């Protein structure tokens, strides 16, 4: 089977409209989370990270749209336009499009929203993006809670292995809406402060908004300096509860084991773990148990939620892209917000931006429905 790589990539976030604008600020330990007062979304002030409407619209106009698009469509289009342009790949029938989202254009259900309700169908979001770029193939929309972003990368690899495509553009995005915040608030899961993944004083999540995209390809001539090979990936259910994380970390542990089993790597050969780390009590505790069961308690790890908040359907993809850059720069990024370990098992949380020779990393995510995904990546050099 051919090797499958992650290559050209883009992050549209409050930091800016390319991956490097986010990476350089993360390297400087600067969060994009801001205290926000917006009663249309939540009655109390909350911390979030979003690019402003004005900047999004300006950037989108440069793509010369011929009709009106929703905010999420604009974000995804800006991100994908950059990744497609960089890659210089013609969108033939050998090129796939996967969209990772949990709620898509859910804001069109709001009475004041000018778009028709049909736009709330996730397949319609796929159709809009497909036709904007004139992809030959229909979009595959993956909606699998908070693992969607990493799972989308795994799905792209599986389709390439199966011979369905040679290249797949994967794009992920979700909006910060009243729909989402009111729900997480009812779950008592929102933090009133910037979130503190794995920390003793953590008090819940922040929700953030980004769009991210990456090229998944079997073509070794289409690599970038931060490219990685997808070594192994797996996704296992907890079979325990639809919202409460497993007390034994079962599904996450199994996902990590199965992803590792596809590679020749042992736990000690993984240089860095990019965890999910939402900063809720139960999620972070579950991860600590699963990482210990997998022998990863000494591996440097972080959650990047302190920079962007939880970006839902984009998060796994966003954090995978940052992992690629982390490897390329041989730099471990700080787990922002962390002060003192607050889980029952040991973890090696990265507390300062550190230079370190890196060649492999593990990305994990877990979500509602009891789903978990783990993916292992290895650095490659361009044309090699």
């Amino acid at each position, binding site marked *: 089977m051919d090797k499958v790589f992650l290559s050209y990539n883009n992050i549209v976030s409050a930091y800016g409209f390319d991956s490097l604008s986010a990476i350089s600020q993360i390297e400087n330990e600067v969060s994009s989370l801001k205290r926000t007062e917006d009663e249309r979304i939540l009655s109390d002030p909350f911390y979030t990270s979003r690019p402003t409407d004005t900047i999004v619209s300006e950037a989108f106009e440069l793509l010369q749209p011929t009709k009106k698009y929703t905010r999420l469509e604009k974000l995804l289009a800006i991100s994908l336009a950059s990744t497609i342009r960089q890659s210089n790949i013609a969108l033939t029938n050998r090129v796939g499009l996967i969209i990772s989202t949990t709620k898509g254009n859910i804001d069109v259900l709001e009475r004041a929203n000018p778009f028709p309700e049909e736009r709330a169908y996730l397949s319609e979001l796929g159709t809009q993006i497909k036709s904007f770029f004139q992809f030959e193939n229909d979009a595959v929309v993956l909606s699998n809670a908070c693992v969607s972003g990493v799972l989308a990368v795994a799905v792209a690899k599986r389709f390439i292995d199966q011979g369905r495509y040679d290249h797949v553009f994967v794009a992920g995005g979700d909006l910060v809406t009243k729909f989402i915040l009111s729900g997480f608030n*009812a*779950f*008592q899961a929102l933090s009133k402060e910037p979130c503190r993944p794995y920390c003793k004083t953590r008090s819940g999540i922040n929700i953030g908004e980004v769009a991210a995209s990456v090229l998944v390809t079997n073509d070794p001539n289409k690599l970038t300096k931060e490219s990685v090979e997808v070594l192994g990936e797996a996704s296992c259910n907890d079979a325990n*509860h*639809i*919202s*409460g994380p497993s007390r034994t970390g079962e599904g996450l542990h199994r996902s990590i084991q199965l992803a590792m089993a596809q590679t020749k790597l042992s736990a000690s050969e993984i240089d860095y773990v990019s965890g999910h780390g939402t900063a809720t009590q139960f999620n972070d505790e579950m991860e600590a148990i699963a990482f210990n069961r997998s022998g990863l308690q000494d591996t440097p790890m972080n959650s990047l939620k302190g920079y962007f908040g939880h970006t839902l359907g984009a998060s796994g993809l966003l954090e995978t892209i940052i992992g690629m850059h982390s490897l390329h720069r041989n730099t471990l990024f700080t787990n922002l917000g962390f002060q003192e370990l607050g889980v029952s098992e040991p973890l090696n949380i990265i507390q300062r931006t550190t230079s370190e020779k890196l060649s492999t990393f593990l990305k994990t995510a877990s979500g509602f429905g009891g789903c978990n995904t783990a993916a292992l990546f290895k650095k490659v050099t361009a044309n090699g």
Partner: protein
Amino acid sequence: MSDLKQELKEKIIEQLNLEDVSVAEIGDTDQLFGEGLGLDSIDALELIVMLDKDYGIKLADPKEGRKIFESVDTMATYIEANRA
């Protein structure tokens, strides 16, 4: 107080969709979580919403819920003492 308990039992069955349970089957001191009725974490969150919506009581700390929602008895006592 016994009216309130009866009302709570009806509400618990209706709002938590306990299709297989009747009011008569819930004892005043029966454990609602774990062994007893087998309610889970989402049910606990629903009960917090119910306190707010039907009795005007907002829990400052969701962890308080564990004691309040021990049984119909403890719920009724808490509501009597705190309702607006």
